[in-house]
């Protein structure tokens, strides 16, 4: 017996070492394979998309692509058989200027010409509306959960609700937003013309020519923004709570000991120190909602819009604002969906496709990167 027992402190056998080595290489391989896949996607889109956004000569960035709105692209062969592509508006003036120009094999491609100003602006507006609402509610909810609430039934229910909200598919948010914000008639609109089909109740606003009409918001900026806000809520509440939790208990106790009321304590001893964390939360929220397509598909987005939202809104300031909020907007993810799935594949649409995907990816990944860096700094810094 004694001969068989070994020293328990001897190094493990060679065989085991090799097995260990092999498996850790396999696990490392899995890890790097996933990263390589992601890198390939970035690389491919950058390789094909960057030339659309950047150019060789000064100013190096193709501002035309960023500062014009999408329009129809016309492709034709001129007299010499050369392939020419131009935007529909240019094409019209070209035809007026050169009435005898030879134009053969004329093809048009919707939404493939011009740039992506409209979608960019629309996405920005959607995100702004969403963030205003969801930050307001999210921060308040986090303050309640972290500062006021005792571990009661209500708090348990709220946490459960938040956790479940985070798992709801985005398209279901879209359905909900469509039924609640767009179709249901309880949301009022300031308008000069009441829509007789959808309005359930309207009255004239004193001292103006317009009406306050309860007709639902329809496919609009505010409906889309609020739908996104509902989606962002769980993320923002969780991140805000984290930042509140990082504020040491001592701060609160010291403040209360000095005779502060609870609200004074929160205002002076908690919120100022939680602000960086809340900023992180808002960037996280932007990352989550800016990339979403499904919730805005039928609550806010349209494929085609001639003017920018604020150019199209009209009326006195209050009415202008209402008009702005209740307009449908173009949105970058929806634009990408349109050009990549709803118009036929052709060489002429390639630039628009890769260009808008590249810009979109750059924006969203930029925000994601910022949020990750901010969170890492916040976590390492705020150790009291």
């Amino acid at each position: 017996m004694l001969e068989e027992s070994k020293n328990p402190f001897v190094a493990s056998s060679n065989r085991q070492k090799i097995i260990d080595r092999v498996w850790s290489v396999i696990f490392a391989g899995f890890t790097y394979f996933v990263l390589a896949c992601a890198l390939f996607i970035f690389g491919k889109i950058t390789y094909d998309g960057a030339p659309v956004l950047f150019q060789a000569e000064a100013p190096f960035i193709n501002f035309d692509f960023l500062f014009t709105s999408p329009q129809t692209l016309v492709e034709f062969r001129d007299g010499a058989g050369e392939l020419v592509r131009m935007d529909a508006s240019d094409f019209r003036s070209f035809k007026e200027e050169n009435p005898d120009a030879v134009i053969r094999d004329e093809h048009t491609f919707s939404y493939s010409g011009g740039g992506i100003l409209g979608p960019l602006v629309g996405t920005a507006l959607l995100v702004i509306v969403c963030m205003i609402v969801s930050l307001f509610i999210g921060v308040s909810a986090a303050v309640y959960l972290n500062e006021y609430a005792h571990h009661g039934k209500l708090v348990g229910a709220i946490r459960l609700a938040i956790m479940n909200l985070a798992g709801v598919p985005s398209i279901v948010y879209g359905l909900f937003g469509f039924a609640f914000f767009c179709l249901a008639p309880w949301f009022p609109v300031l308008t000069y013309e009441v829509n007789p089909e959808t309005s359930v109740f309207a009255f004239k606003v004193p001292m103006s020519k317009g009406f306050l009409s309860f007709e639902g918001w329809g496919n609009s900026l505010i409906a889309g923004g609020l739908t996104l806000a509902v989606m962002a809520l769980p993320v923002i509440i969780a991140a805000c709570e984290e930042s509140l939790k990082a504020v040491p208990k001592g701060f609160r106790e010291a403040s209360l000991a000095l005779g502060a009321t609870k609200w004074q304590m929160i205002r002076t001893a908690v919120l100022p120190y939680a602000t960086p964390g809340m900023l992180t939360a808002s960037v996280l929220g932007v990352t989550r909602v800016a990339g979403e397509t499904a919730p805005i598909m039928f609550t806010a987005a349209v494929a085609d819009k001639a003017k920018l939202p604020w150019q199209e809104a009209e009326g006195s300031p209050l009415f202008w604002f209402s008009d702005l909020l209740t307009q449908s907007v173009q949105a970058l993810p929806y634009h990408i969906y349109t050009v990549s799935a709803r118009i036929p594949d052709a060489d002429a649409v390639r630039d628009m496709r890769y260009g808008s995907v590249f810009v979109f990816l750059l924006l969203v990944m930029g925000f994601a990167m910022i949020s990750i860096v901010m969170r890492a700094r916040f976590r390492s810094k705020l150790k009291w």
Partner: protein
Amino acid sequence: MAKHFQRTGRKLLGIDRQGWIKGFFGGNATLSIIILFLICFFLITEAVRFFPQHHEKLQLHRKSGQEYVNHIITEMNEYSQLVSLTNQAYFQELNEKYALQRGISNSFEAFLDPLEDDGEDLIEALEDAEDDPEALAQAQADWRAFVSGVVEGANRADIDSFGRLDDASWAALKKAMIDYDPVEEEPPAYVTQAQQELRDGMARFEEAKNEISSAGRELKQLRQKLVKIASKVKDDAAAEESAAERKKALLAGAETMTNEAEKAAQIEQANAIVIRDEFPFAARTEEIAASKDAHKAAVAELKEKLGIAVAKLPTELSSEEASALLDQVRKAHPPFVKWLDESVAKASTWQWDRKLSFFGSAMKFFFGVDWVTNSSWHDFYGLLPLFIGSFEISLIAIMFAVPFSIGAAIYVNRLAGRWEQTLIKPAIELIQAIPSVVLGFFGIVVLGEGLRDLSQIEALSWVPGFPMQERLNVLNAGLLLALMAVPTIFTLCEDALNNVPRAYSEASLALGASKLQTVIKVIVPTAISGILAAVLLGFGRVIGETMVVLLVAGNKIALPDWSAGLGVITQPTHTMTGIIAQEMGEVTKGTLHFRALFLVGLVLFTISLCINVAAQRIIKRLGHA
């Protein structure tokens, strides 16, 4: 300082300022419950109203006889698939075995056009000169000269447009064209010989093919007749349902009219609408009910003729593809015949007034295999193909994602160096931020093409479903979704591994276990609840994904064709999320279609809630063990 922290004692509604502030924050927190409740409420109110409306539609479907006729329609559809397979095989064989003969025959006909158009005068001269040998000789000489001119000047690619002829037969045909007699329109012997060869060679096949396609003639006629009747009955019944309302509206409109003549006309029009208590379905569908025997006879005839014809199909073919197609026909034939009997038996139980249970019509939604909307015949709302599509894609995604994400989590948490840890974790989190529409775009333009090219490599033909027919399919979508699921599973897994107490691994290492043994035998089993929950949540994330499946899954609503075995993964499909995104924009509020989409949404919502709850339970149940 004292002023800063001064308390105010004013109260509003019996609540002091602090109470109001607390209430404000609490109210915002409660909003999350309210929102969850509202989501449930809106989905349920719209979705639940689907069932009675659907029930009514199905009842009308039965009463109008459409249900019965539908059996015949499906029978015909299945049968036409057999016919089309046979036709494909026929032309495949024709093209392969008799390409030359076909080329000769077609090229000859292609030559006729220029000859008859440009040589019109010469042909007339030939006809006129029939009785005059001298003139005839002259005309014939002219004709020959013309023909050889045309033939020599002809562009071979235009005439033999499929490139079926070899050089020798092209030359032979050109030479033979001189012998063409335009008056009698008799093809030259060379061409007739080729045509004869083709006819003789394909005679047996052609006969069988024609017999197969004519076997269903009677059933087809029956279908045409009954479809017309049932559609009419359905339209009339639907119109009559709204008769009372229309009458009321017309009369109300007439009240407001000032022109007497118009008013009278409108009142008359209103009075012309007869309101009956009940639509006479029995009388109107009499003809449909009476054609049950005709249906049986037609099917019997179809079976008999088809049996004879299939037996006649040639077994030895020179085209491999054609014989594969015919094998398919022969294989599909016996089950088809069996299925026909079942179908007829099922159809014969139809009665316009048989009661349709509410439960039964609800099950038609959950287990229906067709999703057909905006059809003039009847709209079907069957969830099954969409559900299976979603499930299939998610399953594939999870199968690919699980080894990678768990492997990566183990590596990063236990095996990797410090700098690797700090870099890889945020990098994988970044993957989560890739917008799904971008992934979908990538799937269309890059992965789809790539997979198809890959699937055409000979060495990989053992992979089920390879070579793939469609670029956009289950596998493509599943792979992209796997990439989306990796960050979710990875992060949660990593957390779970992180939560394993240090003492466990230290104890294991102290006992002499290697690093890997510790991970596999101690750490992973301890963290298994977290890992399981992570996989479940990853599944939840994937099944609710919309844009990738909308763009990449192929959007074909059909049950997977299981005969392909594992190859179903390369078939296109449609999903629950995809159908909502695709059709929601086009429906009118309150229609059956609108509510059906909400019901699909409710199903999705329920699935995701169940997955969430299950994940939480698993963590609770196993977490303390």
